[in-house]
C-alpha cells in the first residue's frame, strides 16, 4: 500500500488536533469555565449528540470483536445487537430526565445528582464515584493499548523506530502517538473537542461498518450468492447453541436487557445527557441511535462475519492464512476485496477503514478520559477543596488527564506480563457490570422515589461486591479452587453478570430502604418538582 496509510493517518491526526484547537477558541469566552469544559455549556445539538453517544458506546469491539464472534460462533451472537433499541429507548426515557434536572441544578457528574437526591454524604458520593471509576479506568487503559495493536495492523512491516537510544516497536510507537494526540485535544477543548472528534470518528466507523458489508456481498456474488454460500455452512453456525454454551439464549436476553442500560448510565454517557441542548435533541438522538447503528451491524459487519466464514473457511479449526484470530475477519475481507473492487481507490479505502478502527478505540478512550477528569475533579478534588474556583478545578481536571494518559501508556508499555495490566484486564471484562450497579438508584431517583440513602449505599455495595465474585476477578481474589467462584462461573455461562449483580443490588436496596429513614420530604418534593417539565 506504499505511503497511503501514512498519509491518511497523518491527515486524520492533523484533523483531530485542528478540531481540538477550534473548540478551544470557541470556549474562550464561556461564562462558566467548568460547565463549558465538561459539558460544552449544555448546548450540544442533535448531530453532535447522536454521534458522540454512538462513538462512545462502541469501541474497536464494534468492528473487530463482534464480527469475530459471528465468524467463530455463527448467527447466535447477532442477537446481542437487539440491545441497541433498548439503549435507544433509555437515551430518551432516562436521558431526558437526567438532562432536565441537571440543567436546573447545575450537575456535572452522576454523583452530583445521586448525592444531591439522597442528602449529600461523602459515602454515597464515594460509592457512585467508585462504580463510575471501575468502568472508566479499565476502558482508558485497554483502548490505549488497543491503539498500539491497531497501529501494528496498519503498518505490519514497519521496522523498529530509534528514539533516545532505545528501539520502539511500531506497537509502542502507536501507543505513544495515539495517547499524545488524544491527550492534547481533550486537554485543549474538553467536551467540545471530544464530541466534535467523535463526530469525525463516528462517521468513519459507521461508514466502515457498512462498506465492509458491501465488500463481502460483492465477493460472494450479491445477496443470492451470499445466502447460497452461507447455507452450506455447518448447521451449528446457523442455529442457537445449547443453554450451557457461549451465546446461549438466556445470556443473550439478559445482556440485551441490562448491558445496554449499563452502557447508558456510565459516567461518559451520563455527561452527554447533561450536555444535550434540549429534550428534542435527545428524542432525535434516540431515533438515530435505534435505527442507524443496528443497520450498520445487521447489514454491515455481521454479514462480514458470517460471509467471511464461507469465503475463508476454518479447516480443522485452524484459521486461514492472514488471520491470527477471528477478530481479523473484517480487515482480511476489506484488504482482499477493496483493491479488487475499486483499484487504487480501494487501497485508499482500506487505509481509511484501518484508521476508522483506530478511531473507534480513540473515541472511547477520549470520552472516558474526559469523564475520569470530571469525576476526579467534581467528586474528589471539589469535595476536598470546596472553596476552589471553577478555573482552578478546570486546570486540576486537565492535570488528571495528563497523569491518566501517561499512566495508561506506561501500563501498556509494561506489557502483558505486568500484574497491573492483568488486574485491569480483569476489571475491563466486568466494567459494564460495575456501571450497571448505578441503574437501581437512577431508576429510584427518576421514577420510584421510595429509596433511602442507607438503602442506596447498601445496594451499591452489595451489587459491586457481587460483581467481584465473578471470574476473572473472583478467581484472582478467591483462587481457582473456591466453590463460590465455581458457582459464579456457572452463572456467568448462563446469565449476564450485570443482571446477576443488579438482582442482589435491588433486593438489598429495597430491604434496607424499608427499614431506614427516607430522604427529607421537603428536599424530595423540591427534587421531584424540578424533574417535571414546565407547565
Amino acid at each position, binding site marked *: 500500500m506504499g505511503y497511503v496509510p501514512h498519509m491518511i493517518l497523518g491527515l486524520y491526526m492533523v484533523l483531530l488536533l485542528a478540531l481540538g484547537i477550534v473548540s478551544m477558541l470557541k470556549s474562550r469566552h464561556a461564562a462558566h469555565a467548568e460547565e463549558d469544559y465538561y459539558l460544552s455549556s449544555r448546548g450540544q445539538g442533535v448531530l453532535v449528540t447522536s454521534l458522540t453517544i454512538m462513538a462512545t458506546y462502541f469501541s474497536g469491539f464494534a468492528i473487530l470483536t463482534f464480527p469475530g464472534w459471528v465468524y467463530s460462533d455463527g448467527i447466535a451472537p447477532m442477537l446481542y445487537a437487539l440491545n441497541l433499541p433498548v439503549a435507544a*429507548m433509555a437515551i430518551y426515557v432516562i436521558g431526558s430526565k437526567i438532562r432536565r434536572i441537571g440543567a436546573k441544578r447545575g450537575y456535572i457528574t452522576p454523583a452530583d445528582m445521586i448525592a444531591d437526591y439522597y442528602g449529600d454524604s461523602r459515602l454515597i458520593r464515594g460509592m457512585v464515584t467508585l462504580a463510575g471509576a471501575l468502568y472508566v479506568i479499565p476502558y482508558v487503559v485497554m483502548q490505549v493499548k488497543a491503539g498500539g495493536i491497531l497501529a501494528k495492523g496498519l503498518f505490519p512491516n514497519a521496522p523498529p523506530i530509534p528514539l533516545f537510544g532505545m528501539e520502539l516497536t511500531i506497537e509502542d510507537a502507536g501507543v505513544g502517538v495515539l495517547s499524545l494526540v488524544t491527550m492534547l485535544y481533550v486537554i485543549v477543548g474538553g467536551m467540545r473537542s471530544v464530541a466534535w472528534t467523535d463526530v469525525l470518528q463516528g462517521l468513519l466507523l459507521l461508514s466502515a461498518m457498512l462498506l465492509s458489508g458491501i465488500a463481502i456481498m460483492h465477493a460472494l456474488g450479491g445477496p443470492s450468492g451470499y445466502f447460497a454460500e452461507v447455507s452450506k455452512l455447518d448447521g451449528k453456525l446457523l442455529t442457537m447453541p445449547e443453554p450451557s454454551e457461549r451465546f446461549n439464549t438466556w445470556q443473550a*436476553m439478559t445482556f440485551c436487557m441490562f448491558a445496554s442500560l449499563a452502557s447508558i448510565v456510565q459516567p461518559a454517557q451520563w455527561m452527554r445527557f447533561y450536555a444535550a441542548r434540549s429534550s428534542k435533541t435527545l428524542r432525535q438522538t434516540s*431515533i438515530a441511535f*435505534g435505527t442507524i447503528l443496528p443497520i450498520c451491524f445487521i447489514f454491515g459487519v455481521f454479514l462480514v462475519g458470517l460471509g467471511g466464514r464461507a469465503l475463508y473457511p476454518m479447516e480443522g479449526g485452524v484459521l486461514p492464512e492472514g488471520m491470527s484470530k477471528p477478530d481479523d475477519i473484517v480487515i482480511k475481507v476489506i484488504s482482499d476485496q477493496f483493491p479488487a473492487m475499486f483499484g487504487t481507490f480501494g487501497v485508499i479505502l482500506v487505509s481509511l477503514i484501518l484508521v476508522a478502527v483506530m478511531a473507534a478505540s480513540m473515541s472511547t478512550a477520549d470520552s472516558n478520559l474526559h469523564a475520569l477528569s470530571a469525576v476526579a475533579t467534581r467528586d474528589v478534588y471539589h469535595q476536598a477543596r470546596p472553596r476552589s474556583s471553577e478555573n482552578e478545578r478546570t486546570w486540576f481536571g486537565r492535570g488528571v488527564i495528563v497523569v491518566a494518559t501517561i499512566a495508561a501508556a506506561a501500563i501498556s508499555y509494561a506489557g502483558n506480563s505486568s500484574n497491573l495490566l492483568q488486574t485491569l484486564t480483569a476489571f475491563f471484562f466486568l466494567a459494564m457490570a460495575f456501571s450497571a450497579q448505578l441503574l437501581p438508584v437512577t431508576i429510584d431517583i427518576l421514577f420510584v422515589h421510595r429509596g433511602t440513602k442507607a438503602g442506596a449505599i447498601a445496594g451499591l455495595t452489595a451489587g459491586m461486591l457481587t460483581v467481584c465474585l465473578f471470574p476473572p476477578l473472583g478467581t484472582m481474589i478467591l483462587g481457582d479452587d473456591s466453590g463460590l467462584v465455581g458457582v459464579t462461573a456457572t452463572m456467568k455461562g448462563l446469565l449476564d453478570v450485570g443482571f446477576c449483580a443488579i438482582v442482589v443490588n435491588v433486593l438489598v436496596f429495597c430491604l434496607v430502604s424499608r427499614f431506614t429513614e427516607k430522604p427529607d420530604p421537603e428536599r424530595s418534593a423540591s427534587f421531584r418538582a424540578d424533574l417535571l417539565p414546565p407547565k
Partner: protein
Amino acid sequence: MSEPQKSNRPLVRTLTVFFLMALILGPGPGSTLIDGTAEDPNFLFGVPALYAWVVFWYVVMAGCVVVAARKLWRDED
C-alpha cells in the same frame, strides 16, 4: 413509556407489550423455536431462519422506538 395523556394510554400499552415481547422472544427462548437443528437448520426464502428472526425483531423494536419518539415523547423544555 413516556411520563401520558389519557388518549395516549392505549398506544403506550401497545408499544410496551410489543417492545417487551420483542425483548423476551427475540434474543430469548423464542429464538430456539425457529432455528431448526444443527443437522437440519431452517431457512426462509433461502435465508437462515435465525438471521431472519434477528432482522424481524430488530424491525419491531426499532419501530417501537420511532413510534414512541414521534407520537408520545414531547419536547418539554
